[in-house]
């Protein structure tokens, strides 16, 4: 396990915690054959996987701050691909837009060299239920 408490999928894909930004974990994945799509480009599914991990990490961080132990169940995710990802390190950060008692809406962005030029966006809806 690593700093952001990431699941096996994240570890296997090579996703790690880069740093924390205002309480939101910034995750990264380095370019490798494992995340390659069409030649020279990052696979959209790998981008989505990274953003999903960042969204969940941001939500867990927010729930921890509130001291709420919740079980998370993804309802749906919408991903917009805006630029091709190239052969370099890719970052993603989630931001909780709204977390009520039963459902949370989390946005995530994915970028490479410039955070101001995201390559993809994701919006995820997650059902919350008290853990245990």
């Amino acid at each position, binding site marked *: 396990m690593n700093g952001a408490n990431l*699941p096996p999928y994240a570890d296997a894909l090579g996703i790690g915690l880069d740093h924390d930004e205002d309480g939101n974990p910034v995750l990264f994945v380095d370019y490798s054959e*494992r995340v390659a799509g*069409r030649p020279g480009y990052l*696979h959209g599914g790998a981008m*989505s996987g990274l953003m*999903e991990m960042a969204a969940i990490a941001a939500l867990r961080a927010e729930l921890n701050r509130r001291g709420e132990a919740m079980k998370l169940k*993804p309802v749906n995710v919408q991903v917009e*691909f805006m630029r*091709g990802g190239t052969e370099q390190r890719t970052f993603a950060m989630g931001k909780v837009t709204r977390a009520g008692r039963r459902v949370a809406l989390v946005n995530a962005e994915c970028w490479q060299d410039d955070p101001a030029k995201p390559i993809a966006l994701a919006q995820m809806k997650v059902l919350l239920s008290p853990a245990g």
Partner: protein
Amino acid sequence: MDEPRSLQDLPADFVFDPARASKMMTRHGHGGWLGLSYQDHGPDWVELALPWRDELVGVAETGVLASGPIISLMDNATSMSVWTLSGRFTPHATLDLRVDYMRAAAPGRTVIGRGECYKLTRTIAFIRGIAHDGDPEDPVAHVIGTFMATHGAYL
């Protein structure tokens, strides 16, 4: 003869065959890492399989697959359904993809992704699909999205 490593290396008059193309798309890169394999296809649909394995788990305590691999499975299956319907390989990019999760995939079960291209225009392909873990009537997820031809046209 070796299979071409990438679809971009194919001759222009190549008629798209998802069974053959899958061998390339699922051997290398992210699809290869996930272990995606070709299952079946029809005039406007392609089915790929994603075998369950420990490494792809999204919630360690439950053994449920992460949604990243499901998105990749559906991205690849729907992408291939576009070329299957159009009959040729046109380089394209996924514009958007929405995934609705009906339920968690059962731990240990192979997930089947069936992607369908339901409308093709010159530059945009509209796709939808389902992922299931054995019973197509009880899907794990529904997806809908669009692709855009980046070099040349679909029709």
